[in-house]
């Protein structure tokens, strides 16, 4: 019963299953921090990116936002993580912090584009009505446009969150023991990668599936309030 033996070595021996659970905990922790940071950065970057001055040209803040979105989306996440770890936060020992920052900044660029799509799908008349009442662009954005935009791009935001969850696995490059790294560590002791990797995959899948179901319910409820 080779399978049983493999299973034992992969999960039971020396209480190895705890490594996975701990790794999963770290994965989730980094994902949540990064997602929140990404949401915040993404919204700000999106609004700044769309901003135009009196003459219709970009403001300085708008240019900065554009460059941020452009560069982050144009370079691999792994490189951004390495730069954050080895260059920008070169004296930090806190892998969770560095990983959360790197992934948050990364996610923000993609969230910015998602929200831009959401905003552009809101009817232009909404902004016109807000402005003609005397509200500023920002006031109209915050009170009228963004709430509708978020509802519109909700599915895309969920996708981004799921991608983020799985992408945190590259943080093993700087030694962060997330779920993937935990599986790696176990298989490097047993020389049998199949069980640990499958086990990790199953755990990722369960988390993603749960998220999808929960978000799906939330989305349904949002849609219901739209029904005529």
């Amino acid at each position, binding site marked *: 019963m080779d399978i049983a033996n493999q299973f034992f070595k992969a999960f039971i021996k020396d209480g190895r299953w705890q490594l996975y659970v701990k790794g999963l905990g770290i994965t989730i922790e980094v994902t949540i921090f990064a997602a929140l940071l990404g949401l915040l950065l993404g919204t700000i970057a999106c609004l700044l990116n769309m901003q135009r001055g009196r003459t219709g040209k970009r403001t300085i803040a708008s240019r900065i936002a554009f460059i941020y979105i452009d560069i982050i989306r144009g370079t691999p996440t792994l490189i951004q993580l390495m730069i954050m770890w080895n260059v920008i936060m070169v004296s930090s020992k806190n892998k969770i912090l560095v990983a959360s920052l790197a992934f948050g900044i990364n996610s923000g660029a993609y969230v910015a584009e998602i929200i831009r799509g959401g905003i552009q799908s809101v009817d232009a*008349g*909404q902004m*016109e009505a807000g402005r*003609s009442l005397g509200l500023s662009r920002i006031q109209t954005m915050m009170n009228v446009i963004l709430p509708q935009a978020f509802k519109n791009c909700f599915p895309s935001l969920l996708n981004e969150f799921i991608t983020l969850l799985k992408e945190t696995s590259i943080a093993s490059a700087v030694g962060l023991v997330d779920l993937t790294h935990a599986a790696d560590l176990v298989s490097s002791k047993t020389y049998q990668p199949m069980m640990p990797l499958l086990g990790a995959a199953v755990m990722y899948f369960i988390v993603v599936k749960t998220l999808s179901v929960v978000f799906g319910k939330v989305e349904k409820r949002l849609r219901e309030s739209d029904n005529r």
Partner: protein
Amino acid sequence: MSTETLINPTEYAAKKETGKALIRVKDLRKDFGENHVLRGIDYEIHKGQKIVLVGPSGCGKSTFLRCLDMLEVPTSGEVWLGDTKVNDPKTDINLVRRRMGMVFQHFNLFNNLTILNNITLAPVKLGLMSKEEASEKALQLLQRVNLADKADAYPHSLSGGQQQRIAIVRSLEMNPEVMLFDEPTSALDPEMVGEVLQVMTELANEGMTMVVVTHEMAFARQVASKVIFIDEGVIKEENTPEEFFAQPKNPRLQDFLSKVLQ
């Protein structure tokens, strides 16, 4: 007929009365790329007047209206609201827009807010009224148009006519000096046009200064102080409604009216 009003007519009439016109437009021009839509319009609108613009689609009447509150930015020329030059880059347009109300063809109620919040959002966020004051006034206005029971509903659950009446109320909540209407009934089913026109007529009777772009000729005849025909980017004819409809001078206007009037 209720004794409540949409605006306070005496208060409105007493508002700063100068010899100057409320709205002045000087050599207003607007190009969209190569398309010269407005080619030099000069006009004055005095307080209490109801100006109605008619004409075929694309003649520039909506563009003219939207230039008044800078929803379109004039290519050249001047727009004045009282003593304020509206299209001056140094002017804070947000302050100017508080003094003007705009009603859109497609209502543009805020879909994510209740009717009550639609109406109170601007005055509260701009610090003009407290939430309580704004709500109280909003309910009064809703009462006036017989929609008080819809205060907690969302726009999507209302008919077009109801939404447009609420849109008018939303603008009135800000106590504007002038109300601009951009084809307010063009997107409505015929049976709802009447209820909206009725509100507009009452508003007119209470003394509000109004600039209206519309195809509703009966309304124009009934309510307008002056009717304007814009063609090829300039005002071709302007007259009292009686003269305008009975004795049109401009050949294109005659042609237009012959097709439109039944």
